[in-house]
């Protein structure tokens, strides 16, 4: 790859990543003294209050509810049961919880990887000026505006083994499948639908990252005789590191917590019972056991944290390294 330009940190003018922080004039609260700080705090107050009420309070409440047998049903008392729900999750319910953790991780990893790889490829194709590109961009983004139930129903109809289009297609090859009712295919199909429905947004973020790359860099790369692959590898890919951080983190955290699409497609059957689905069924659909549902939420929260924090650290480091 001799001859391709190295990325110059100071000259790119790319409004992203750590550079963005350095190029902006920083205003420290420390500049203001005494009463001068008051307007700053007052301006912060509404946002902080909203975050406290809608973010922190429910989170703390979930942790507290996980230590009770709360059902939320008027007239049925809630008692503090200590760690009983956690004991239940790791003893009598452990086979179900362990299976759910496996389903959650498989789903999360597959969605994050497939969604980002596909989005990256599509974004690379769609960033070029060619006829009909606006149409294809709109087409790819279209599923992102559809509701989860609509998406679920569309694919449930397509994969209906009793006369759906996919069944008819398989029939041509003398094959059949239960699709969303198959232990083998339900999870891959749910992953496919999740990727299909979220792909548009992921592509959009990559596209915006690619559009921010200065044209001179591509021109320089071309002058140096870089092939398309090398231009992508040494120019595009490093320069969209901040977009990748956003896309990977959103896909990972979003897919670990997903339950609504699975609820519509399989109701958590056939190895698709992710922790989010298990939690929803325990808290709302079955016995209304909010205490146990909150316990599963806490386990899910912990797993999400264990995945998201190192991932974020790695991606941020990567950003700093490549930009």
């Amino acid at each position, binding site marked *: 790859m001799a001859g391709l330009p190295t990325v110059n940190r100071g000259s790119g003018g790319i409004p992203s990543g750590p550079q963005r922080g350095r190029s902006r004039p920083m205003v420290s609260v420390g500049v203001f003294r005494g009463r001068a700080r008051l307007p700053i705090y007052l301006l912060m107050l509404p946002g902080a209050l909203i975050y406290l009420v809608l973010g922190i309070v429910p989170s703390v409440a979930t942790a507290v509810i996980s230590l009770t047998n709360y059902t*939320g049903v008027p007239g*049925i008392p809630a008692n503090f049961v200590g760690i009983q729900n956690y004991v239940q999750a790791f003893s*009598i319910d452990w086979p179900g919880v362990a299976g759910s953790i496996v389903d959650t991780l498989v789903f999360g990893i597959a969605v994050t990887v497939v969604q980002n790889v596909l989005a990256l490829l599509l974004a690379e194709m769609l960033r070029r000026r060619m006829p009909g590109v606006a149409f294809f961009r709109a087409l790819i983004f279209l599923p992102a505006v559809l509701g989860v139930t609509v998406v679920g129903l569309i694919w449930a109809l397509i994969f209906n*083994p009793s006369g759906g289009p996919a069944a008819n297609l398989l029939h041509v090859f003398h094959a059949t499948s239960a699709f969303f*009712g198959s232990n083998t295919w339900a999870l891959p199909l749910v992953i496919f639908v999740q990727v299909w429905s979220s792909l548009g947004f992921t592509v959009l973020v990559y596209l915006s990252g690619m559009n921010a790359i200065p044209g001179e860099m591509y021109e320089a790369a071309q002058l140096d005789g870089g092939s398309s692959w090398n231009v992508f590898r040494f120019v595009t890919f490093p320069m969209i590191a901040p977009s990748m951080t956003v896309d990977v983190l959103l896909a990972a955290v979003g897919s670990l917590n997903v339950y609504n699409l699975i609820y519509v*497609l399989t109701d958590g059957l056939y190895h698709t019972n992710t922790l989010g689905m298990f939690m929803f069924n*325990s808290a709302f*659909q*079955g*016995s209304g056991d909010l205490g146990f549902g909150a316990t599963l939420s806490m386990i899910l929260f912990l797993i999400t944290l264990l995945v998201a924090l190192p991932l974020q650290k790695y991606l941020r480091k990567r950003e700093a390294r490549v930009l």
Partner: protein
Amino acid sequence: MNKMRIAGAVLTSLIVGGLGVTASGFRTPVATQTLKIITWVNPPAVAVLKQINAEFHKKYPNVNVVFQTAADRSGPYATLESTTIRGNTVDIMGTGPIQPLPAHPTTSNMSNEQLWGTHGLYVPLNSQPWVKAFSPKINATEMYQGKLEGLVTGTYTQGVFYNKAVFAKYHLTVPRTYNAFIALCKRLKSHGVTPLFDGLQDVGPAYLGFIYEPLMQEVWRPHVLGGNLNKALSTGSARWTSPYFVKVMQREKTIMQYLEPNFQGVPWQSMPGDFASGKAAMLLDGSWDLAAVHTANPKMKVGFFPLPGSNHPAYNVPFVAGDLTWVVLHNAPNKVAAYKWLNFFSSPKIYQQYVNAVGITPSRLGGTYHSFAQSVMGPWFGKGVNAAQVFPDLPASGPYWDQSSNWPKLQLEMYQGTYTPKKVASMYQQGWPTVIK
């Protein structure tokens, strides 16, 4: 100037219209009320209830009925129920009967309906004018400590609905025993005809109940002292490891081999239409779906027989259970309108309209009914062994296998070969002592 006049006239007419001026002068404006009713989706029931609501609004113009439904009683509707019960926005909720309660009811061994009914979340309806018009036996299934907790609209029947034309074509007769039933299925299959149809996608595994539940009552229940398997299991005199339960599952597995291909992925919602379009010779279903079959193919001649699980013909009778039950919620914002609606619903003409459309056995005394289900099921209509005598009604989910969220999944895994029937029986029994202690 003309524009001003027109504007004035419009304004005056709006004000006058709003105040409700009649020929006799001004009348006091009547406040409109909202009555909110929720129930699960059963297409014929939803259609007729919409008509009934329109007629109710005609009679009580100041009451606007907001009618909300959610699909499947063990799926999204269960979510709607459990969120509704925590709030105070719904007046009438469709649910199921609460009896029989466990021998020692606790919060962990009662179904949701039982829990709500026994904790004062429903308004007692004993003093309502319609109560005496309904069967005391049916009312007893919704009674707790002398309080009538709801209006049980009727009883549904489960069994096998068959396409008479297909049976005639292959010279088949209605099977009376399990062996005859399997022989019939084999024969149909040899002619390239799918014998049975039962959609089990997503929440559909609960529809395995069309096989599992009759087998429980025909294979196991007759061998329990007093014929009440529910009671025997609840008191511990019967155990899940019984060889009869193992036999139930072995036969269930055999019958499932004759279902349509890939039945696990076939949506339960399309079952009546699929059967009506000739995709199988028989449909495993409840009487509530017959109206949908008839709508999909009015020319189709349909017959009925109870699923023959036993080789003793006398044991093979339909599985019946209490259907939609209306309850007025304790937190209902408009109880007065709710009482009016229930009274309207239970009036002879309106109730007859409902029963004829839905195809249930009426719980109201007297009256003449003509439903498609009645004509198909003939003498079996509403006759059979009640679900309450078959197995305990536990909370929908939790750590025990005999819970409505759990058993269908396990039975499906048993069919797929993950567990043997004997292993499943021991799994059911494990932990059962804590349910009945």
